[in-house]
């Protein structure tokens, strides 16, 4: 049995290294995917173009504008003294947020009255609109607090005894709320799934198209031996991919590795076997290599992307879909990856997910072997 598995694994390695272009693509693809995804998918809101309509042109208005642009959240796209300019800046996409400062703003403040400003937010892209709105409100409130303090000091009033609620909020695991820290551990899983499922989905069906499945069927080789033999090179290649992705994530994107790497490796091994198994299962049921590729993309990409908790929280989706997400290994691995990278988890924290992946790997590989041997006749 061991000999036959080794013979098949040897053959697969030979075929893999024979086509260097294909091998190159398989190794390069994850890097390109990671870079593309990591740079395009970001929930961080920065450098939002801001248009200011300043009809006051006072020290106070300039102060206020400076307080808005200081943090880097907003970048001044233009300043003018016509309200119409604010409208058109949003309309033509020059700015996402417009702040309207009426004349007399500085004078009102100097008199100790509340100054009024108008804020326009482009809501066509809800995420950045929400964050921009919250930011501009918070910054305005902050500025107003500073004004109050200044006014109190100027009038010799001590405000320190006033009851003010000071909430001390501390964010754990990802204190800067960097979305790359949050996304990349999940992204690794998504990319790994796409690459591995694709890899094996064409594998068995190609044996059928080459008619080599008949020749294999006439040897004492069992279908489970064939599948294990094909799995080993796939596992190795996936580990090379994983290494590269983790290296990029930690090295280039600065994702912290806080937990037990062994737990991550154990999870990755089970996860990769599960994915290769899904590929084999596709391969055992589809009629041709073309269908296998399309099916692999559908089965790997969509659930990995949408139902893995990688970017779209699973507790926010309909119950049925949430339940459905449990039949894909992606969500378990995303949890393991994120917990190990960010929360510093080890085996104790992720044993449930490891167990789920273990069951998944055995069941799906077994099913593929069963399906294939039935189909082989």
């Amino acid at each position, binding site marked *: 049995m061991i000999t036959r598995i080794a*013979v098949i694994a040897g053959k697969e390695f030979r075929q893999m290294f024979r086509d260097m272009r294909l091998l190159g693509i398989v190794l390069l693809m994850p890097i390109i995917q990671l870079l593309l995804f990591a740079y395009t998918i970001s929930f961080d809101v920065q450098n939002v173009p801001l248009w200011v309509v300043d009809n006051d042109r006072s020290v106070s208005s300039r102060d206020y504008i400076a307080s808005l642009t200081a943090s880097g959240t907003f970048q001044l796209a233009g300043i003018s003294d016509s309200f119409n300019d604010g409208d058109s800046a949003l309309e033509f996409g020059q700015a996402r947020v417009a702040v309207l400062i009426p004349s007399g703003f500085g004078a009102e403040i100097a008199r100790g009255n509340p100054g009024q400003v108008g804020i326009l937010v482009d809501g066509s892209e809800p995420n950045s609109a929400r964050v921009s709105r919250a930011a501009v409100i918070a910054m305005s409130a902050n500025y107003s607090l500073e004004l109050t303090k200044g006014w109190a000091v100027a009038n010799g009033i001590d405000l320190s005894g006033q009851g003010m609620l000071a909430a001390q909020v501390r964010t754990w695991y990802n204190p800067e709320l960097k979305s790359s820290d949050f996304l990349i551990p999940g992204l690794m899983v998504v990319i790994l799934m796409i690459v591995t499922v694709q890899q094996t989905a064409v594998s068995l069906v190609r044996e059928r198209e*080459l008619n080599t499945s*008949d*020749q294999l069927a*006439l*040897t*004492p080789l069992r279908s489970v031996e064939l599948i294990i033999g094909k799995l080993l090179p796939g596992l190795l290649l996936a580990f090379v991919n994983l290494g590269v992705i983790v290296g990029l994530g930690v090295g280039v994107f600065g994702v912290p590795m806080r937990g037990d790497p062994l737990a991550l490796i154990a999870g990755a091994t089970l996860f990769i076997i599960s994915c290769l198994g899904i590929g084999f299962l596709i391969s055992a049921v589809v009629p041709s290599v073309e269908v296998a590729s399309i099916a692999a993309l559908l089965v790997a990409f969509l659930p990995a992307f949408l139902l893995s908790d990688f970017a779209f929280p699973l507790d926010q989706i309909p119950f049925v879909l949430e339940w459905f997400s449990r039949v894909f290994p992606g969500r378990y691995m995303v949890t393991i990856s994120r917990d190990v990278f960010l929360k510093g988890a080890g085996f104790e924290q992720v044993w449930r997910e490891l167990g789920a992946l273990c069951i998944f790997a055995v069941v799906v590989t077994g099913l593929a072997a069963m399906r294939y041997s039935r189909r082989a*006749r």
Partner: protein
Amino acid sequence: MLREEIALQARSLRRSFGEIVALDSVDLSVPVGALYGLLGPDGAGKTTLLRILATLGNLDAGVAEVNGSNVTDFEREQRAAIGYMPQQFSLYPDLTVAENLRLFAALRGVSKTQRAQRQQLLLDMVGMTKFSERLAGNLSGGMKQKLMLISMLMHDPDLLILDEPTTGVDPLSRHEFWELLAQLHEVGKTILVATPYMEEAANCDEIAFIAAGKITKTGTPDQIVSDIPGFSYEIRAEDLFEVQYHLDSLEQVVTTAMTENALRVLVNAGTRTELAQELSGFKISDITQVPTDLETAFIYLAQQAKAATVDNDRHFQEVTK
């Protein structure tokens, strides 16, 4: 005959794919050591029958046995006794000749030293030693077939099942291929070979003629020919095609077949003189009575089978009306 002496046996074998009946109560028995030909037109059911006998195909009804064991509960290890060469190339095009040979032998548990010995011996036998490092996908058609043959021999099986091994191969390679089969036959291998070529079938000890899923005739090549009723004539004339057209319309003419420079005709009644009279309107240079050949027999048997199916269909339609 003792049961052990039968290498391959089919009894009332039936197999259909949807509405198409590929095999219809087929009986076949191939003795140990025979060079047995399965002759029939395209789509006759040859491949279906061979795949079942090679333990690769499913059957709907009946029994198929290899060396006395039923194919449906054949053990994987027993398959080492079988070598099967399908019609299409079925080795890895991206592995070399030597890698392909070693791979399948290794899977069958042939030891490393034996693999090396046999590889050398077999490559020599087919004159392919210098191609051992070439990718199998880059071989010519004839060489691919030879590679498939020797790959099938690497584990030294006693029973060889070949499905149209020379279809699409040039005449010289075909000739060489059959010489190899003759060598294997001499050393005692049992060979069942499907072919659509008459002249190849003539090399066999025994032939089964299969058409439309039925074996309609079995026997030695001579027996099959001599069992064909009627008389064969060879006609030479200036306008052979017109002669053929005319003959095909006559009731006593069973088949006509064009050879290189003559027309062969099988008639079920009538003398040479009667035939000459019938053709008096043409410029006939020669009419000679000849022994019926295998090609004529093939056409006759194929037509008989076709007529039977048409009758069956008509009967079926009448019954179901």
